[in-house]
């Protein structure tokens, strides 16, 4: 049977299994109103935003990865994943999560002052989580309020935090955790290396983050100040990685993502 026919058959059968969410309209409108407000707020900020957007476009064109796949053009940045709002969360729908988190949490060694200053020169950014990855790359999850973005990400070295960057208008109700899939230094240096980091930023007070690959046993991720980092080995097939995040109250979130391979062997 031609592969084209197999695909048509598969897609038709698969699509039929997707139900339509009954509140799709309400949810889209609610989010859309928020987007409109943020866009208007951003327009007020003036030329700085335009400059920032232009810089981002250049950055995105410089070779990002989505999971294990190399990017195919300027519209394929890596993929941060944001967590859900927990029923036990203290946030309210009107309180964006970035206003509920303290700033200044670091994974390992904090980035250099040059790196932090270069996130948005001349602007006072609020850094909610940052650190230094095992390969020496520095990263930061931050907010530059005038841009109107919910959260931004920068990764690189020294005064160049733009080897990987991005921003989103994430739902303000998300307040539990964020996952950023980011390429390693070896990945960025070219060749066939497509190794990546998964940087999991748990909510404040997160004491442990466990992961399980393809339903295997749970293993602890190395966590520092509620931030965990997991390495993905180059050249390995995609896997389903499950996560569970834990604080003093117990497990508060669980999630999974694809396109990530087992960590390198240790020892």
């Amino acid at each position, binding site marked *: 049977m031609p592969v084209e026919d197999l695909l048509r058959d598969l897609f038709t059968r698969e699509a039929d*299994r997707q139900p339509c969410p009954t509140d*799709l309209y309400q949810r889209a409108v609610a989010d859309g109103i928020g987007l409109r407000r943020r866009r208007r707020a951003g327009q007020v900020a003036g030329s700085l935003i335009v400059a920032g957007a232009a810089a981002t476009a250049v950055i995105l064109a410089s070779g990002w990865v989505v999971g294990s796949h190399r990017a195919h053009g300027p*519209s394929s940045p890596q993929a941060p994943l944001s967590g*859900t709002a927990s029923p036990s969360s203290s946030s309210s729908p009107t309180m964006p999560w970035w206003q509920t988190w303290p700033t200044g949490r670091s994974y390992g060694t904090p980035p250099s002052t040059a790196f932090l200053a270069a996130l948005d020169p001349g602007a006072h950014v609020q850094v909610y989580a940052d650190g230094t990855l095992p390969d020496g790359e520095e990263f930061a999850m931050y907010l530059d309020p005038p841009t109107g973005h919910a959260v931004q990400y920068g990764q690189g070295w020294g005064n160049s935090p733009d080897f990987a960057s991005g921003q989103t208008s994430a739902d303000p109700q998300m307040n539990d955790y964020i996952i950023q899939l980011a390429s390693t230094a070896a990945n960025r240096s070219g060749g066939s290396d497509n190794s990546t980091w998964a940087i999991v930023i748990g909510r404040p007070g997160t004491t442990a983050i466990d992961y399980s690959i393809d339903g295997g046993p749970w293993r602890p991720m190395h966590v520092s100040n509620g931030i965990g980092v997991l390495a993905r080995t180059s050249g390995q097939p995609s896997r389903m990685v499950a996560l569970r995040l834990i604080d003093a109250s117990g497990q508060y979130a669980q999630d999974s993502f694809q396109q990530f391979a087992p960590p390198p062997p240790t020892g």
Partner: protein
Amino acid sequence: MSDSFAEYVAARGHALTRMAYLLTGDHSQAEDLAQAALAKAFSRWSRIEAMSAPDAYVRRMIVNEHVSGWRRYRRRETLRAEMPQISVADVADDLAVGEAVRAAVRQLPARQRAALVLRFYEDLPDAAVAAILDCSPATVRSQIARALTTLRKVGELSDLVNPRGE
């Protein structure tokens, strides 16, 4: 404005969510993806509905939202007794062929997968796929050709496509 948007979502919401599911392979992500694109569409609906093909534009938003940038996992329930599963295992009557195709498609880069969905599910011509993917028709053809070549090389699928090594 809200009325026409409501009519649009009522008419096309399910189809858009189905397409989002084919792109993501995950029911929850599909809902989030469709919702994110529709939220953006709502925020500029007066401009979109004035277009000659608003639905094509919204489909483009979905594809772009999926291919690019920040994937958001936003689920209504946080704690689960079981992990959310992708669609592989939950249809007992699926044949091996479906399994092989599904797994192989999921391994494709996002843009190639999007091109396949737009071509073989939405039945769009090269030009329409190109408009959605923001590339040339020639690039669409090469993306699809590359994807099909990859699929034909997948072990189990190769046997199914050419059962006697034809």
